[in-house]
């Protein structure tokens, strides 16, 4: 019991800090990469290659004035950034980031906890993140923020459905809801080869769920100034910002786990493979933002309900038929 608790605490400590660090340096990576894609230099003043820029940003945000708009709902206004950030971090608890290893004679699984409903857990927890956006928009008592919040809830509800359905093909093939089992089931062949359509739907919905370009309607700066977080400043704003980047990491990790074989890979150690795959998806996220223009709101809704949802259902039907005929 004691050994279990200690290893659990150590794993949580390491994973928690790594996620926050990754999120912080993701902002640096994003600025650098977008700058390169737009033939600019990007941040290069603070530290070598601008590597200390995230730390400078953090200090700046800490020192900024924390503004509470007049006639805003103080309680909900303070609650919203927390509701946004906490699910983003907690969702990582069931994602396996490596094979089990021997440490000081103990067998340690490189996952915080392996539950037999892992996939559902991640879907359920990430679906709570939208409350942060919705509550922020409502509590700010500002029209732009409220419009952003309404867009966020409509968008999340629409794309969550296809996101959940796109995973079912993988579940049929793996025969388990546990992410550890799903990774083990991909020992010989990655599910991206068996579920190409499911993968594309998952990726599209994943981008929409994280509110990233080209699906960043809730914060569309050209129409809504900054959308749901327009009134926020200082650390409350930073928490929304961090939640977005942590969500990117979570979606990337889920995509790698469900479709790219998780930590499986030749030569390199499992943890390195996992990080490599997550990084590849993060790169894709940033690349898309630099390349694609934002969708119009009605296009976004039509695409979600009339294209992605039927395709996801078709994917389940075909996968079920093939698996059923083989059995």
């Amino acid at each position: 019991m004691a050994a279990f608790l200690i290893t659990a605490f150590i794993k949580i400590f390491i994973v928690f800090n790594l996620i926050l660090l990754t999120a912080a340096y993701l902002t640096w990576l994003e600025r650098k990469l977008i700058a390169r894609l737009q033939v600019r230099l990007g941040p290069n003043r603070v530290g070598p290659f601008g590597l200390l820029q995230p730390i400078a940003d953090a200090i700046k945000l800490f020192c900024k004035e924390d503004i509470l708009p007049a006639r805003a709902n103080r309680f909900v206004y303070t609650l919203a950034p927390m509701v946004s950030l906490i699910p983003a971090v907690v969702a990582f608890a069931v994602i396996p980031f490596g094979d089990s290893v021997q440490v000081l004679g103990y067998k340690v699984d490189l996952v915080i906890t392996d539950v037999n409903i892992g996939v559902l857990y991640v879907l359920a927890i990430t679906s709570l993140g939208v409350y942060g956006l919705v509550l922020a928009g409502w509590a700010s008592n500002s029209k732009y923020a409220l419009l952003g919040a309404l867009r966020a809830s409509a968008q999340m509800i629409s794309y969550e459905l296809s996101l959940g359905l796109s995973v079912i093909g993988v579940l049929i093939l793996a025969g388990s809801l546990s992410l550890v089992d799903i990774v083990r089931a991909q020992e010989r062949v990655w599910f991206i080869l068996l579920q190409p359509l499911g993968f594309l739907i998952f990726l599209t919905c994943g981008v929409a769920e994280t509110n990233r370009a080209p699906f960043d309607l809730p914060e569309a700066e050209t129409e809504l100034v900054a959308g749901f977080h327009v009134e926020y400043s200082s650390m409350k704003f930073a928490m929304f910002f961090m939640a977005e980047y942590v969500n990117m990491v979570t979606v990337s990790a889920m995509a790698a786990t469900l479709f790219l074989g998780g930590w499986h890979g030749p030569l390199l150690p499992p943890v390195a493979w996992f990080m490599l795959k997550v990084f590849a998806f993060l790169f894709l996220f940033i690349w898309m933002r630099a390349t694609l223009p934002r969708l119009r709101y009605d296009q976004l809704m039509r695409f979600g309900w009339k294209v992605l949802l039927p395709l996801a259902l078709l994917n389940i039907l075909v996968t079920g038929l093939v698996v059923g005929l083989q059995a």
Partner: protein
Amino acid sequence: MFTAFVFYLFAAVALAGALFVVLQRNPVYSALALILTLFAVSGLFFLLNTPFIGILQILVYAGAIMVLYLFVIMLLNLSREESILRAHRLQRVVGTLLGGLLLVVVAAVAIRQAGPGAPGSVPGAAPGTAEAVGRALFSDFLFPFEMASILLLAAIVGAIVMAKEDLR
């Protein structure tokens, strides 16, 4: 011991949240309290060794349905109390009566079913895993399951017909 403590904690949170839903006049606060209650109920399901049902509670109710509730509340911009509390008097009387009746039924079932065992555990219950629930749905409860799906389909068709204005 630990199980009992967790049970009473979740039960207290669920009850407090449910009370807050009814007593609070600001509809947004009511919705938030309802989400809290759903979380506590989900915790109780986990305690009963039925993780699948527990997580569905969060995934379906807290994650999807309550988002729509909040969406509607914010869209209508219900101001404080007026639109809600201006209910008809007869409505209040009937509501109280029916609510009391429901309470009596639930209490009767709960008292009759209360068996041995510590709070927060059901001795000899099958684990509520995804496999067990799926098997039950597609064998013993196939007919009610299909009936529910037809009911939902009818509701979807009805919603489309009502939302589509230029349907001649």
